[in-house]
């Protein structure tokens, strides 16, 4: 794909909105879906796929394409529409989402989804996949980058830290963690369930370069991307994106009730209208 670094802010905002509305629409087909985990990473996904990654959708097997691993596989519902929109497959196929025999399930299967670089669903595995991709790229002299999106609850998994240690050891400068730091896991706030802060210092102590930015601000996201080094060997790169779980739908923002949900009737229409209006300033609920 040609240079996309000049994609306008308006386009990226529109594609983030598209990710959210498609997530709501596809969830209706399934009868249940991961809204809030997808909403928190909508801007990151939009910036990554529409302005950052070196990809050619007409050649999904191009061996020097950048790789993306959606380690928090439950957000695949936000990735499928992006892949379809970029031309990896016919968007009409998404009408089958989660129905018997569909290629598109709640967690993504690389054997079925064109453009998907790896399957996911079992949390904690994706960064190791990325380590392998980065090692393979370097061993074969290819200069692609590997991006791995992790959930913040996910990094309680021990395998993540095996991978973090090894990427530092192998000096995988071509590996990038995109941490969706949305604050919530299923049972509560991460800091109450299993605390991870100061997460940026933790990555840094394993030999990673770490940036920490607002994951809903395109200038900040693209600025962090612009800081990534081009060398394959060096300190691996982590970007901690501070985000809001459920961002974009007032009732879901930082709510524990919408990790999995299903909007029906007027609720569906209200939420779609809210999303169409675009992001409003985030106003946390006052503490009780």
């Amino acid at each position, binding site marked *: 794909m040609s240079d996309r670094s000049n994609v306008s802010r308006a386009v990226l905002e529109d594609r983030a909105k598209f990710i959210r509305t498609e997530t709501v629409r596809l969830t209706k087909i399934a009868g249940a879906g991961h809204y809030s985990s997808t909403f928190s990473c909508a801007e990151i996904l939009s910036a990554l796929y529409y302005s950052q990654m070196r990809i050619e959708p007409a050649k999904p097997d191009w*061996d020097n394409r950048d790789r993306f691993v959606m380690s928090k596989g439950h957000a695949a519902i936000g990735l499928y529409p992006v892949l379809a929109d970029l031309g990896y497959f016919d968007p009409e196929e998404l009408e089958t989402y989660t129905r018997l025999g569909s290629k598109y399930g709640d967690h993504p299967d690389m054997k079925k989804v064109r453009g998907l670089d790896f399957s996911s669903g079992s949390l904690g*595995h994706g960064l190791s996949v990325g380590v392998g*991709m980065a*090692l393979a790229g370097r061993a074969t002299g290819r200069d692609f980058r590997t991006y791995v999106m992790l959930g913040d609850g996910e990094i309680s998994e021990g395998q993540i830290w095996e991978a973090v240690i090894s990427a530092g050891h192998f000096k995988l400068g071509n590996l990038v963690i995109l941490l969706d730091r949305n604050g919530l896991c299923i049972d509560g706030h991460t800091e109450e369930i299993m605390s991870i802060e100061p997460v940026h210092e933790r990555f840094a102590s394993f030999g990673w370069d770490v940036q920490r930015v607002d994951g809903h601000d395109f200038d900040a996201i693209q600025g962090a991307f612009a800081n990534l080094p081009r060398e394959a060997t060096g300190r691996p790169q982590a970007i901690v994106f501070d985000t809001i779980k459920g961002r974009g739908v007032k009732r879901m923002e930082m709510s524990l009730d919408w990790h999995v949900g299903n909007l029906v009737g007027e609720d569906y229409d209200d939420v779609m209208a809210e999303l169409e209006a675009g992001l409003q300033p985030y106003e946390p609920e006052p503490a009780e």
Partner: protein
Amino acid sequence: MSTEMQNEAEIFRGTTEGETRFRNAKSVRGTPKAGMPAFVLGEELAEMAHSDPRIIVATADLASANRTNDFKAVHPDRFFDFGIAEKNMITAAAGMASCGMVPYVATFASFSAILGAEQIRTDCAYPRQKVRIVGTHSGMSMGFYGTSHHALEDLGMLRCMADLTVICATDANHLRAILRKSVDHPGAMYIRLGRGRDPEVYAEVPELEIGRAIRLREGKDLTIIATGSQVRAALDTAETLAADGIETRVVDMHTISPLDRAEIEAAATETAAILTVEEHNVTGGLGTAVAEVLVDLPRVPFKRHGVPDRYVEVGPPAALYAHYKLDAPGVTAVAREFLETTR
């Protein structure tokens, strides 16, 4: 002290012929007829990698134990030691495979197949990645290291995973054949090795077809279907029984999944009885797999022989094999007892 107890004491002191040979194992490393699968692992892969740039080898802090350091010495740029982090290693291998590499990841079977079972299923088998998980020191070959280091459940755990080839190396030359065939075999594979001290069965690298058993001896009175370390014991048993006029067919059922049904059906229809022998829990492994085929066939006398469904005693490997009747005298005794019940 009874003779039997004396014999056992000698085994425990490591004075049997077998134990002596084992202790001197390093002195014969690298010789073509050493009959030591694990020890040819690194050198064979290194040889293959000269002409195949896809081959990558990784281990988890056991490069000397499984001789993958023989590969490292030749191809240091395609060798990765992941430290004591097997899950990361197996999944990273899947990532490498998705980029066109053919990674061989080797560590003790207890820490590859058992510790890494979910990574094998979810990251290698399910996405059909060409990862070769090499489980060395399988069964109870780690002897007195104990249950944490034994893998007597790996065949049972892995053979019920779809899109995963499960294959056992019988000896060094057999392992060479498996490795050579494995490079272009589709999907993920689990290759089960002993400790590298297994006696020789194949004097030369055999013709091998993955999923097709090798019939090593003909007979009509009994078929012994064995895998891995027990193929030699099965052949020796057949030799002993032949002296009594009992003709035994011996089958090396190296591939546990997919299983060679035709060979089992042939044994059921052409021979009078079937005995399976494996260095594995008698539940879930080769014997169970064969039983699943036999239930669909006309009844034939059948017995499974392996390790009983409990954690094994501590002891030197040779002593354990004798204790659990998984050496030639033991298998012979089990076979005779079984044949008595069929008369």
